[in-house]
């Protein structure tokens, strides 16, 4: 059978079209959506550990500095030192106003912008040998003890899920976001 040039070129074109189509299909990732519905999990406490600056996520509870000091001495002072001034672990109090000095000290009270972060971090990570072993009452009390050491709250103030987010930290406005400009 004889085939003229135009017929050959049509066949080549058809082949190219077929090839392009199959290539296009392969280029599109094909996979099965394997995520399982998790609506039942999303409200559960073990999936709501992060506490936001507005207080979202804070559990009910309360405590003051007097109770907090007792807990601190039992559970925290071994690493953070007597009066939370630091030992093998970092100092938590003092050094307010030191940040632009020759020897800045980034303590909770001198540096941390949000009091809610203190609750969040104590609950998830402290003490390191037994995270989540402190009750919410104990954590509010520890926050009250630490914050009252530098007069950020009065010594007799009870902290709870309503009052903790209202605490204004001294270095609240000390941060500037680099992202998204990244320079």
């Amino acid at each position, binding site marked *: 059978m004889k085939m003229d040039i135009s017929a050959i070129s049509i066949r080549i074109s058809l082949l190219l079209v077929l090839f392009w189509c199959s290539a296009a299909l392969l280029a599109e*990732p*094909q*996979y*099965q*959506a*394997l*995520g*399982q*519905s*998790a*609506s039942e*999990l*999303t409200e559960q406490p073990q*999936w709501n*550990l*992060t*506490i*936001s*600056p507005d207080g979202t996520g804070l559990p009910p509870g309360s405590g003051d500095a007097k109770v907090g000091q007792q807990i601190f001495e039992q559970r925290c002072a*071994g*690493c953070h030192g007597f009066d939370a001034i630091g030992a*093998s*672990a970092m100092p938590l109090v003092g050094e307010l106003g030191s*940040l*632009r000095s020759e020897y*800045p000290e*980034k303590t*909770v009270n001198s*540096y*941390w*912008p*949000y009091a*809610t*972060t203190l609750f*969040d*971090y104590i609950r*998830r*990570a402290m003490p*390191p040998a037994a*995270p989540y072993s402190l009750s919410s009452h104990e954590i509010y009390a520890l926050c009250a003890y630490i914050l009252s050491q530098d007069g950020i709250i009065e010594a007799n103030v009870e902290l709870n899920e309503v009052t903790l987010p209202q605490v204004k930290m001294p270095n609240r406005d*000390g*941060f*500037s*976001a*680099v*992202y*998204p400009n*990244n320079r």
Partner: protein
Amino acid sequence: MARSPLHSRRQFLQYTALGGAFAGFSLPVLAAQTAPDFREILPGSMTRAGADFSNYGQPSAYEKKVIRWISANSEMTGNGVSWSPLHELQGTITPNGLHFERHHNGVPDIDPAQHELLIDGLVERPLKFTIDALKRYPQQSRISFIECGGNSNSSFRSKPIQTPAGYAHGLVSNAEWTGVAVKLLLEEAGLKPAAKWAIAEAADGASLNVSIPVDKLLDDAMLALYQNGERLRPENGYPVRLLLPGWEGIVNVKWLRQLRLQQTPAMTRDETSQYTDLMPDGTARQFSFEMAAKSLITSPSQGMTLPDNPGIYQVTGLAWSGRGKITRVEVSADGGESWVDADLQAPILDKAFTRFSLPWQWQGQYAVLQSRATDDSGYVQPSREQLIANRGRHGYYHFNAIISWEVYEDGYISHIYPD
């Protein structure tokens, strides 16, 4: 010590000259041996059977000093780092057992069959994924460095630390990571328009949590399951970790259990009190995710002694940038007075280690070896003086300035600040 001026350019050799030096060299012809008595003088490895096969190979017994250097809190041994021995390594891929570590409360033991990843918050459909399910998604691979934001921070101190290169600058490693594009899973869950940040949380003893911009997750983020071809090492996030190419180590969350989509960041401890860069005016840079271009001469480097005078030494090292590809690495032997372009080993990859090298003729003179990287954004690695002029001495994070090795006349090499 006095610095002797030198014409640095002339110290760097051309390859053609090197090749010429060895031309015309030939071995004498050995007479055939038939007597068995030379068995005794053969290397022992040739006259007996070798060791058996192994289920999982280990480095040679003669390489025992090539180790990560551990620096942890004595009262909380799971809080600290281990440094990658970059000064002992070649090429660009960090072996899995030598990838740097940073843990906040130890390495968790996680059974992958029990592990779930939850994607919830501002999504249409909260979803959970098993590890087996994640393995069934299309797997993508990319070679990427991960660098701790605190890498090299001893260089902010007033005196140069005298430790080997990797043990001062090796909180950075480079691996081929394989896993699932985070974008696929976010699309499956259906992002709501208000979702701008994801709170990533780990299943370790610190429940480490940080906030990550959704834009990055949709760009090039990966849920990494494999590291250099094998499943992640426990210390690198087994069974699943986040990989955010080019961004500081802390946001590459290991042992990932949840991505909670929110409108705003959570202001967690590790994005406020830690991993923020204190400036001289007392304010701090926050969410400074990108690791800027940096390079390090890994050999010759601190603690080594050049054995031959005169001698030819292959100056080699690593360069990387969280913003893209390395386009140029220059090397100086005179403390930055003159620079020569080093050779860059292919392939040069985006946000990955690039190996550079340059032969150097040393003739016993005092020298200061430096390298300077440029990336494809045009950014040039700064001098230490420039970095400190911009950021002060208390930034603690993101030290990416030029690192200098001082070569004494006797060949010994130490760390120096030339400024």
